[in-house]
């Protein structure tokens, strides 16, 4: 590296540092969620996600505090009480047995004086620690998929994972311990995911199809009031969603459409249309006129031209639109909350409910949250260019 380049490199350090710090700040919250969703419950309770790789065995601190001074770092400082010996530790199966030794005298000395006893939880952690240290027990895995399985089947009880509880106690109450049966129960996240897809896919394609027809008429048909019609339809973008909730809610109550997928599809179609018409018309209106002329001269009617020429050529615009609308509906909470609610809980609704109940702990809530953001993230990284274009152009949507 010559001197000039070195000076330039040094001059650019503040710039690079600023960008890296900002990017780190932006990335950290999501990274924390991602890492936590793969950590076992005990690990989440014991140390922050930033310690995931450094995390030590359970009960390390407790052992140091209560036992380490006499028994030593390597557990074998006292020859008569070698805590690294599996034979010795195997005698203590439960923490109550361990706490029973605290008041005993060994060589005329009380094991642990009354006022220095660890509490029940600490004793249990110390026993776990010793069982691992003596090789009786495997140390718990750093990372696990159990949280994901728990939330997919909607299991939120405290203590133990779905698999552990099913192995120990078997089915009970609404829990059948059959993965697919449990995972399609109303509060299961897998069911929420299915509901999200059921809502999102038609709510993405319906407005695009309707907008396609309207946009074709608005760009390639000749009739009075065409400009006014275009301005009126697109101008409806101005109406915010909140503005129509009350009347539609009442209309749906009268028609019995509250809590139905059809009601939500139609609602999203209504709110997706103005922007969809605007985008597709702009694209279709710019297709070369010769194309249409020769098709018409060949005897094609409007419908054939629309189906055979316009739809295939408008695909780039439709793709950007579809991605935008898909994410808009997938991420929506307000419409799902009001028109579907508990009847068909979608992912965003389930998540908002999980926050209220704390969903059986952070290890599971982070897993549920990550399931809901995984789909948008996948789409984002796969179609970044379309995605950004669609989102920017659609930023003025209602």
């Amino acid at each position: 590296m010559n001197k000039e380049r070195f000076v330039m490199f040094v001059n650019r350090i503040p710039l690079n540092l600023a960008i890296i710090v900002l990017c780190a700040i932006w990335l950290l919250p999501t990274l924390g969620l991602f890492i936590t969703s793969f950590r076992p419950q005990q690990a989440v309770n014991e140390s922050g996600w930033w310690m995931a790789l450094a995390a030590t065995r359970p009960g390390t601190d407790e052992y140091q505090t209560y036992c380490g001074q006499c028994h030593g770092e390597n557990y074998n400082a006292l020859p008569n009480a070698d805590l690294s010996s599996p034979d010795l530790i195997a005698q203590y199966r439960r923490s109550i047995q361990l706490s029973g030794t605290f008041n005993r005298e060994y060589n005329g000395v009380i094991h642990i004086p009354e006022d220095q006893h660890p509490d029940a939880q600490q004793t249990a952690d110390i026993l776990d620690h010793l069982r691992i240290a003596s090789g009786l027990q495997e140390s718990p895995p750093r990372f696990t998929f159990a949280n994901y399985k728990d939330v997919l089947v909607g299991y939120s009880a405290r203590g133990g994972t779905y698999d552990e509880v099913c192995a120990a106690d078997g089915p009970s109450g609404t829990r059948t311990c059959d993965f697919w049966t449990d995972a399609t129960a109303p509060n299961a996240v897998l069911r929420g995911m299915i509901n999200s897809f059921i809502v999102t896919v038609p709510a993405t394609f319906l407005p695009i199809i309707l907008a396609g027809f309207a946009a074709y008429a608005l760009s390639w048909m000749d009739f009075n009031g065409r400009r006014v019609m275009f301005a009126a339809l697109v101008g409806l973008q101005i109406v915010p969603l909140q503005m129509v909730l009350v009347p539609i809610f009442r209309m749906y109550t009268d028609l019995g459409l509250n809590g139905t997928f059809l009601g939500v599809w139609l609602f999203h179609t209504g709110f997706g249309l103005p922007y969809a018409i605007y985008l597709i018309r702009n694209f279709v209106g710019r297709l070369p006129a010769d194309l249409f002329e020769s098709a018409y001269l060949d005897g094609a009617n409007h419908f054939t031209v629309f189906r055979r020429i316009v739809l295939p050529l408008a695909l780039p615009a439709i793709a950007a639109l579809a991605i935008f609308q898909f994410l808009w509906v997938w991420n929506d909470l307000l419409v799902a909350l009001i028109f579907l609610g508990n009847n068909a809980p979608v992912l965003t609704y389930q998540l908002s409910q999980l926050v209220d109940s704390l969903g059986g702990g952070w290890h599971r809530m982070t897993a549920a949250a990550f399931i809901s953001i995984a789909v948008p993230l996948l789409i984002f990284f796969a179609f970044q260019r379309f995605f950004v274009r669609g989102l920017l152009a659609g930023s003025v949507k209602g």
Partner: protein
Amino acid sequence: MRTLMVMRQGRWTPWLYMAPAIIVLVIYVAYPAIRTGLYSFQNNDGTASAAVRCAADQPCWGFLENYRQAFAGQQGQIALRNTAIWLLVMVPGTALFGLLLAVLTDRVRYEALAKAIIFMPMAISFVGAAIIWRFVYNPDPGIGILNALVTALGGESRAWLATDPPGNTLLLTVIGIWIWTGFTMTLLAAALKSIPMEIIEAARVDGANELQLFFRIMLPLLAPTIAVVMTTMTINTLKMFDIVWVMKGIQTDVIATRMVSELYLDRNNGLASAYAIILIVLIIPVTVYNIRRFGVEEAEK
């Protein structure tokens, strides 16, 4: 717009093509918007004027009673105050961070990667983002990274989200800035790229330093885009619902969440409609300005 003369169609054909879209738009957007306007002057089931909601020895605004309750009620005032806080923090906040990141990332080779990282929260649902940030703000320094940092620096961990209002709303606006900066950055970066290199080179040759370059050359040229960014963010902020709804803080309501609470939890249709009208009255002038601006830019292209 060019129109073909070769192809004649029946008088009704265009309307047949547009009918499905028009029907859905009338039923779902145009008609209900007008209904909401009417509801806002009526009682809760829309059977009489809002005046019947007046309490005996309270001030009464007649058919505007719903609006009086929205403006004078304690809940309504909290919502209005918080909406103002959101606007004051979010709009300049996202614009400043967006500008900073657009200018900084423009100068490095890993521009695309850095931008993707900043933009990523835009893909995530607001609910997902709210959970991510509840985690960050967690009172336990062994769970929440903010408290972990505070305690590592010698401070005391705090229950951040239980901060007294309106402090808790400020903490929520941080989430908003985290989400929307990617959006403002992308718009501003596109505008930055469209500044001709010759202008910048000429300024450099004339001896301008980087700061002068930014304040004297770039900022004036970016001003129209900054205006669009700020108006768009004003609209987005006014509509903000999910973050506040999911975080459920004490007195963190904004107009949009207040409205949904009245509608969904208390079935106060009249009052909820009044909030909706207040919202659109705030939004319309900004939107009109925005559409005009977009129109000007389209015409200039």
